[in-house]
């Protein structure tokens, strides 16, 4: 092989298939994870990533098998610790995109602490939360995102606690990119993955993901063709918040509470509708969006709730190292051994 051909082959853009490790995928047939895997491979190819560039870290759970099915570098960690492992990796590999594949048990329960700190610090991780609202790998116990009242193996009389709201939690921890999407909507999923990849900072993606075995149909309201348009609010930056099969419903604020208005009855309200602004700094608008769901009689928002620019943790660490090195000069062994209060014995 001449040098010339070498350059040409490496410069060839990889395809989605190139990002598959070729191992047999062992998720249950019909599992939503397949879709996330396929879209991630596609997005990595679209972004022109080389195989060695993206580094993927996971914890424990069905979704955490993700790295084994990708052809890039992968680390299958221990339960809950993916974000912490990924933080160390990102700090030493600041130029590589570091992705975290995790589930609601892994990230919200045993890994809750690492999650909020990865958001707070703006480590620049891309966190994909596969939220199926159930423990799948351990075969059907309730998770921290399971609804109150849900019957599971460990709640035969119904769950008596209250679920986390992942987007609200991420926002509360000051995540600079917060979005929601769903396994069934390949195009939207791809869009969110791609925007998260482009974001500089920790990007949190809640991906609603159907568990065909233990929680099938959990997201029917927002995924079934006949009903979903009435239950989803597709967020688009700069556009008024309109939804519904006939695009005849809008969201406006009554005080600080969002309400649904019927535009076919009251068309004059159209210019009073909330306009989505992903870049709204304070996070107040995004906060309102995180609280919208069928529980509050409102549509479930999909899309990017918030994306704001803030210097990343990794940048801060690198900047300090560079500044101090410039000021003091690069350390050497000779220097190290000659620092401090030294005296000589003849």
């Amino acid at each position, binding site marked *: 092989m001449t040098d010339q051909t070498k350059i040409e082959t490496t410069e060839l853009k990889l395809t989605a298939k190139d990002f598959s*490790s070729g*191992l047999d995928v062992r998720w249950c047939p019909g599992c939503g994870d397949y879709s996330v895997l396929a879209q991630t491979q596609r997005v990595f190819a679209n972004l022109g990533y*080389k*195989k*060695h*560039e993206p*580094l993927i*870290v*996971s914890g*424990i759970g069905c979704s955490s098998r993700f*790295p*084994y099915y*990708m*052809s*890039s*570098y*992968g*680390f*299958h*960690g*221990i339960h809950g*610790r993916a974000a*912490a*492992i*990924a*933080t*160390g*990796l*990102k*700090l*030493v*590999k600041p130029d*590589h995109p570091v992705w975290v594949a995790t589930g609601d048990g892994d990230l919200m329960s045993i890994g809750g*602490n*690492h999650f909020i*700190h990865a958001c707070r610090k703006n480590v620049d991780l891309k966190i994909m939360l596969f939220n199926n609202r159930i423990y799948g790998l351990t075969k059907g116990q309730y998770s921290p995102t399971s609804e109150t009242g849900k019957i599971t193996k460990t709640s035969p009389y119904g769950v008596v606690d209250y679920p986390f709201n992942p987007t609200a939690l991420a926002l509360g921890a000051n995540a600079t990119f917060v979005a929601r999407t769903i396994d069934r909507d390949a195009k939207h999923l791809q869009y969110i993955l791609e925007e998260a990849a482009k974001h500089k900072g920790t990007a949190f993606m809640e991906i609603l993901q159907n568990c065909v075995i233990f929680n099938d149909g959990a997201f029917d309201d927002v995924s079934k063709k006949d009903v979903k348009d009435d239950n989803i609010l597709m967020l688009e930056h700069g556009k008024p918040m309109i939804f519904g099969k006939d695009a005849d419903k809008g969201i406006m604020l009554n005080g600080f509470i969002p309400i649904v208005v019927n535009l076919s009855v009251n068309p004059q309200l159209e210019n009073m509708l909330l306009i989505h602004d992903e870049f709204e700094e304070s996070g107040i608008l995004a906060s309102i969006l995180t609280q919208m769901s069928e529980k509050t009689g409102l549509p479930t928002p999909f899309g990017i709730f918030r994306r704001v620019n803030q210097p990343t943790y990794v940048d801060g*660490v690198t900047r*300090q*190292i560079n*500044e*101090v*090195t410039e*000021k*003091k*000069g*690069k*350390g*050497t*062994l*000779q220097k*190290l*051994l*000659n620092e*401090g*209060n*030294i*005296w*000589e*014995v*003849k």
Partner: protein
Amino acid sequence: MSEEIKQKKVENLTDVTVMFAGDSGDGMQLTGTQFSNTTALFGNDLNTLPDYPAEIRAPAGTIYGVSGFQLHFGSGNVNTPGDSPDVLVAMNPAALKKNLPNLKPNAMIIANSDAFDSKGLKLAKYESNPLKDGSLAGFKIFEVQITRLTQNALSDTGLSVKDIQRSKNFFALGLMYWLFDRPIEPTVEWVKTKFKKEPILIDANIKALKAGYYYGDTTEMFATKFKVESSKLTSGRYKNISGNEATAVGFVAASLLSDLPLFLGSYPITPASEILQYLSKYKNYGVITFQAEDEIAGIASAIGASFGGHLSITTTSGPGLALKTEAAGLAVMTELPLVIVNVQRGGPSTGLPTKTEQADLLQAMYGRNGEAPIPIVAASTPSDCFYMAIEASRIALKHMTPVILLTDGYIANGTEPWRIPEVSELKKIEVKYAENPETFQPYNRDENLVRPWAPAGTPGFEHRIGGLEKSNINGNVNYEPENHHEMIKIRAEKVNRIKNFIPDLEVLADEDADTIVIGWGGTYGAILDAVDRVREKGHKVAQAHFRFIYPFPKNTGEVLKKYKKVILPEINDGQLAKLLKAEFLIDIIQHNVIRGLPFRSSDLEKVIIENLGGNND
């Protein structure tokens, strides 16, 4: 000033142990550190033991709020912080009460008599003033009005009475400098730098220091001052260093010797936090310190950084090691280089956070699920932490394995003069990477059963690893029974083969003795002193100290079986003894005293002599 006073008697001493004790807020650690640094500069060998409460500022004047700093210095070799103080500086009654039981007979007590008022006595639960009631017969008492004298000396500084009080430790320090014939200049210089932004405090502290010094010179109370000649240390450049600082510097050195940047993931915990504090300053050495959200994130981030190709470490103390257990197993499974430092403290649970102990050896050895062997090394003195940090890194990188480095609260906080090595004395750390992407398999192995390292992000070596059992050679997930059995044996044998690369156990003192005293970790100085004294009394005894514990050095069995008696003192209930008995089927005479304090060499001396059949009287 009369001639008579000026010509005070000078007494020569070979070594002295001084205890500075006062309230947590009295600045005793600072006073002790200053005295140590000046003494080191003066050329004495020394060893220190800070002894402070876990509470930051316990109620003033109470016994549990007493903070102490013990310092042993001499003209010969000094290996321990001293068994019992010859001199106690007691800033209040509580400090006296707490330290009295440990003083040498006829010790000198310099007491701040101003603090022995009814309130101070009551707080220390004294019914009458011990300085006056004759209960201190047998000690040499020097009552000094430290509070009042400091007040007088600083009355024109413009400081409030309260602020002036904060300088009284400098008065005490000045007095001690006079008493032991040390220069005050190093402390004057230190004060000038330390309080650069508050000139009024420079003035006040130097005035107090000088007032104390001149007080010693002029008062008739002290008829004698003492001289401790400087030690005949090996020639070279020296620095007074604590174990925690030496650990930090050692890892920076390991980073430079291996040409790999250093990553530390850590969560603050007593008594290990200082390593994180020190390392956070070494930014121009490319050191990344990540103060994690918890102990688990500390080690998990370090594993991530190791996957990414850094020399990665995590630092903690016993309770933190317990939390890191599962992740340590992950490092065993993924066969990544990692050093876990455990600065041992009194346990179990929160235990005695500021006190020393050696009771985490079995935790280090066995504290993980599954068969998860991790090599263990231990530092024996404050400056040895430097070398053991390098050796731990060397093993981790050469053998692709996590390594546990054990130090303890005593050597971590204690200091000693360290002869700084020349760059040429430090051996490079070789790092071997995966070389050929065509033939690369993540769990292929070399002749030492070590798998190749291909740091994440290197083009051509993309691979996946994790906590699930691996297929030998290709590293894919594998649940087959035979493979699991084989992998367990391989991981154990990989660690076992490290013994081919570590030094033999060295026998000191009399090789032809029939009794050997062995030990590991921070008990080295006390055992060495005890053995020396036993030999001075005409007995034959050998000594060996473990720095590499797991795997044991190759000659361990041979050494131990040579002696009729093996004596093993440990500050735990017999943990190394258990390991040695199980491995070598030998009998061991154990000495286990677990008080949160280092051994007294005089106690060990007695134990050794008793076992030699000698008479202690």
